[in-house]
């Protein structure tokens, strides 16, 4: 046995060192800017850390977690966040329909695909400002159309006040978790859901479905048609099962995005209002940390949000995955 390495081993070691050297900048960046802050926030969640330094810094154990679980505001904003997920099935179904239409072999289809994908590469803030104008209750095109229709049909229905209204289609109360008849209607939350659906239908989900549709074996569809299956049966029994892995992926990602979302809309369109109805957990965490300086509490809220996302993903994985055959 000698201390010398064989030529192959020496080259492998050199390659490993070189690889590690090149990976190092990225790894350092990840540690400093991603995993470091994540671990730091976990530690902070067990403290009373307040940027104003009014209270002596100390460990509070699960105090922040206990406080936020008993905090009615946190519950309200969790309900708001869940409410925004209502648009998710419609957005996914819309993406699928659009992808099926855009998968046709038609002249100029690339232009259509580009046009429908346009919202995805347009500045989010610009889109939100545009929608804010569309939702203008008095002069916005949306209400102008509603007014025109109701007037033509001689209906005495007032058009919604959109971003200015606390009402919602489920009649959720504004100040406590529950329902209130006077809140039944259409308001800011619904306005944001509609905008979200519009943005998502032609977005990345549509691209994923387009890619998945090209992978559906043509011979399966043809065989089904030869057996006398109509278009709906072909879709129901051939195409849809083949799209299941993609659908599953889209549902999981949409759930994660939905639970973490709502920040930009609240920041740009509503400031979380009216009366907190468009404040989501993500926006609430921002407010607590950077406007009210309760870093410890906000960190705990972040970790509860993470737990919710994790649980939702796990449930999706456990039950949704059963329907998926790869």
């Amino acid at each position, binding site marked *: 046995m000698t201390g010398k390495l064989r030529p192959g081993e020496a080259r492998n070691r050199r390659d490993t060192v070189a690889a590690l050297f090149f990976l190092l900048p990225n790894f350092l960046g990840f540690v400093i800017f991603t995993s470091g802050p994540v671990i730091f926030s976990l530690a902070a969640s067990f403290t009373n850390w307040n940027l104003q330094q009014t209270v002596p810094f100390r460990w509070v154990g699960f105090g922040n977690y206990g406080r936020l679980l008993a905090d009615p505001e946190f519950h309200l904003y969790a309900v708001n966040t869940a409410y925004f997920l209502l648009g998710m099935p419609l957005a996914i179904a819309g993406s699928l329909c659009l992808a099926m239409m855009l998968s046709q072999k038609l002249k100029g289809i690339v232009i259509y695909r580009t046009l429908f994908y346009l919202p995805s590469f347009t500045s989010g803030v610009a889109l939100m400002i545009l929608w804010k104008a569309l939702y203008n209750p008095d002069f916005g095109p949306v209400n102008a159309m509603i007014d025109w229709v109701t007037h033509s049909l001689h209906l005495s229905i007032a058009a919604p006040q959109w971003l200015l209204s606390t009402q919602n289609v489920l009649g959720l109360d504004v100040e406590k978790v529950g329902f209130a008849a006077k809140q039944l209607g259409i308001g800011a939350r619904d306005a944001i859901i509609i905008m979200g659906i519009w943005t998502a239908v032609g977005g990345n989900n549509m691209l994923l479905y387009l890619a998945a549709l090209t992978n559906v074996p043509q011979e399966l569809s043809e065989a089904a048609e030869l057996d006398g299956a109509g278009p709906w049966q072909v879709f129901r029994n051939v195409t849809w099962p083949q799209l299941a892995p993609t659908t599953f992926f889209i549902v999981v990602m949409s759930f994660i995005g939905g639970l973490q979302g709502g920040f930009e809309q609240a920041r740009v369109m509503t400031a979380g209002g009216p009366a907190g109805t468009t404040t989501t957990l993500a926006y609430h965490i921002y407010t607590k940390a950077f406007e*009210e300086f309760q870093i410890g509490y906000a960190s705990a809220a972040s970790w509860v949000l993470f737990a919710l996302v994790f649980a939702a993903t796990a449930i999706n994985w456990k039950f949704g995955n059963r329907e998926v055959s790869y």
Partner: protein
Amino acid sequence: MRVFFAVTFVVLIGLSLLAWSIRPNVAEPGKTALTWVSDDNPARREQISLFNRLHKDLTLRLDPNNTGMEKVIVQSLAGVGPDLFDCYDTFQLSAYVKSGIAWDVTDELAKLGLDPAKQTWKAVQADSIYEGRAYGFGNNVGADAVWFNKSIFDREGIPYPKGPWRWPEFIKLAQRLTHRDANGRATQFGFMCEWWQWLHFVYQFGGRVYSEDGTRCVVDSPETVAAVQLLYDLIYKYKVMPSPVEEAAMATQGGWGSGTITRFGADKGAMALGGRWWLCTLRDYKGLRLGVVECPYSVKRVFRGYGKGTLINKNSPHRQEALKFLIYQAGRDYNQLISDQADALGPVVKFAYEPRYLMNPKHPEEDYNVVWRDALERATPDQYSPFINGQVALRLLNKQLDLVKNNQKTAKEAMRDAALQLNREIARGLEQDPELARRYRETTGRTAPGGAQ
């Protein structure tokens, strides 16, 4: 492949070194650069320019991108904060002091013969003096009055209003000046104001946000409820002020000098509650003929005073140089510039009593400057409680005001709930903060709200 990565690495290092070597100089050679985080008001650059002309060894730059208390605190604590920053109310001041980023300049100013407590308007002291110590100097200050559009009054054959006056008289006039088309849509409003100005109403109804000692929220008092009710009635009962929907219909996008100012400037309203600083925008409206009258009052002839102080970052490496900016704010040059620009009023009282304040030769048509000064004499600064986080209080109050504004709650219900929530927040703060609890005990003789002696 390894060669490719190695070459890429070397090129990136080389580019980084190049970028470092050609980075722009923040100050001219031999000059010290100072950064001031403030709003991008059109007047601000002229104020900076004058300072730079007067101080050849310094270069002051405006940083409008990092305004916001959270950014200032976080950046200053991290050692990359500005040298100077603005403060808009006592809560912000307390936050800056408690965060340890505001430099106590009491002794430094005293050495220079400056005493903000004696020399500046009371309304701006709340932005720079905290618990008897000065952490900065006033920047500008004002109190709101009623702007009126002379052309509209002339067109309608209505004489210009004169103060002092009361709300019933005002409402009758505003109703005469409000016009709607056949569909009920307003073509001209008699009056405009923003809901964030609600404290202006509260103070003159004799109401308060907190008790005298700051230990309790008292917005459920009949006086405060009456003030909020008046705001509501101006929209929904007297219909002289735009509702949220009507406001949205006239809305312009945000930015400095937007909202009510632009609507008023565009002849959408005959009268509007606002400050002298509106002129920074309204002077650009060609043909707009303006007048100003004291705001009507209810029980007390007092108005809400507000302003802005400039503080020095305790961690700044250029504290002594930054101090020169505070001295500049205390001087005639700066105060006269503020007066000429109409960026509210200068912070130092005595300069508002010089003839130059009353008559700006470039704007002889502005013959109403005395109204602003009189309003400021009667102005009361915003109340503050050390027992609650001001941002939390603001959020809770705004939520309840939103509900009133949107016709979801009566003023009485909303203010009752706001008081409950704020007092609950105060109680929670006392449980968590031993220092606050000690202070509360010393103030009230009790350990907790409604608690044992």
